[in-house]
């Protein structure tokens, strides 16, 4: 059995660790709340953009844009959204696992796809796996991430898409279900598929029979040319926000269970410590009694 001093130092060490994990748990909890608020604030803007696009496309059948047309997929761009730091439970590994499984299932060689990463962990993962990387520098997912932070990536994949170098863009991220569950999912952001837009309930203005007819300045085509790239960027931003919420939730749960575990460890160690102390006392006692007996 380990000596008393050893056990004691392990107890203090574990206590300190649990203090840290507890603090991290609370920090993540408050950050999660903030992230959720951000998502809520962002949603109306996104809906507005979508409404506008729908409106323009409905108004004029002539309008087309390469981002709306599905073409034969020769090369795919995957975007991995991960965190910068670890200690977030299965947050990063679940994405990487889902991604590698997906790659194995859908691709025969590494030439068929290229990867863009958001988050330091994803960057080092992709570099380790020797996939073709779109961004040369890791993009950090800060808590207050802004467009400008991942501007370079969006620019380059938009250009590649328009020029035909890549034919589809799929994002891998952790979808936020609730605080306890986040599911690694993938969604296609380019080409823009119309399918998921039509589930929404009919809009109010259509119900009233007075759908607004807009004037487009300078023209619908030019506006759609401008609007769609913006829409794609905003979609990606929305996804990153959601991934961010997932990250905090995941870290929160991980830290919670770490704290609980530490408590278990401490109680077991305390038991060992007490036993060792009792053993030491017994030995001392037998020594004294033995000595006393010898004198008599």
């Amino acid at each position, binding site marked *: 059995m380990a000596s008393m001093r050893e056990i004691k130092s392990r107890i203090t060490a574990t206590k300190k660790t649990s203090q840290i994990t507890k603090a991290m748990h609370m920090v993540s909890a408050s950050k999660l709340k903030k992230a959720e608020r951000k998502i809520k*604030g*962002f949603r109306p*803007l996104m809906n*507005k*953009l979508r409404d*506008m696009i729908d409106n*323009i496309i409905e108004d004029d059948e002539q309008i087309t844009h390469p981002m709306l047309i599905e073409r034969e997929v020769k090369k795919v761009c995957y975007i991995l959204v991960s965190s*910068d730091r670890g200690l977030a439970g299965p947050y990063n590994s679940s994405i990487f696992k889902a991604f590698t499984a997906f790659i194995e299932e859908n691709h025969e060689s590494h030439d068929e796809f290229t990867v863009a990463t958001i988050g*330091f962990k994803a960057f080092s993962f992709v570099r380790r796996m020797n996939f073709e990387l779109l961004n040369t*520098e*890791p993009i*950090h997912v*800060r808590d207050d991430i*802004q*467009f*400008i*932070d991942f501007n370079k990536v969006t620019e380059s994949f938009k250009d590649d898409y328009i020029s035909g170098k890549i034919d589809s863009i799929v994002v891998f991220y952790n979808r936020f279900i609730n605080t306890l569950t986040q599911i690694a999912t993938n969604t296609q952001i380019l080409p823009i598929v119309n399918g998921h837009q039509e589930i929404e309930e009919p809009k109010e203005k259509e119900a009233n029979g007075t759908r*607004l*007819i*807009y*004037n*487009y*300045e*300078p023209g619908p085509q*030019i*506006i759609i040319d*401008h*609007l769609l790239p*913006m829409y794609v*960027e*905003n979609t990606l*931003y929305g996804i990153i926000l959601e991934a961010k919420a997932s990250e905090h939730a995941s870290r929160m749960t991980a830290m919670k269970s770490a704290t609980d575990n530490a408590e278990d460890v401490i109680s077991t160690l305390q038991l060992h410590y007490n036993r060792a102390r009792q053993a030491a006392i017994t030995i001392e006692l037998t020594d004294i009694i033995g000595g006393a007996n010898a004198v008599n």
Partner: protein
Amino acid sequence: MKVSVVTPYGELYNETVDYVVITSEINGEFAIMKDHIPIISTIDIGYVKMVSGETEMFAVVLNGIVEHQNNVVNVIAQEAQVGMDKERAMEHLNIVRQQRIEENKRRSVDFFKAEQELKKGVKEAKAGRL
């Protein structure tokens, strides 16, 4: 008429004004006054001038959409900055962007250094063998 300037990071401006003037590099300049018909326009790099009485406010916009209906002007921008005059607002926006890029670079380096240090520390402390 009401005007609201919204970015993904929150609402920057929401006031009642007399009229707005929208300027962008692709479209040129035009004004939206009260009871204008519904209109949608885009701004790549430009500004929205919001005039009420004697006071003028400028919102410098990068990548934005302007929508007007029922005397409500919605400016949705990816990046925007509201200020008293356009030069200063633009300058401010550029400075903020520049700083952001530089900060990101610095963070990237710092992060990498910290990561290396952590690795070294873990090795030295033999933390894996506890």
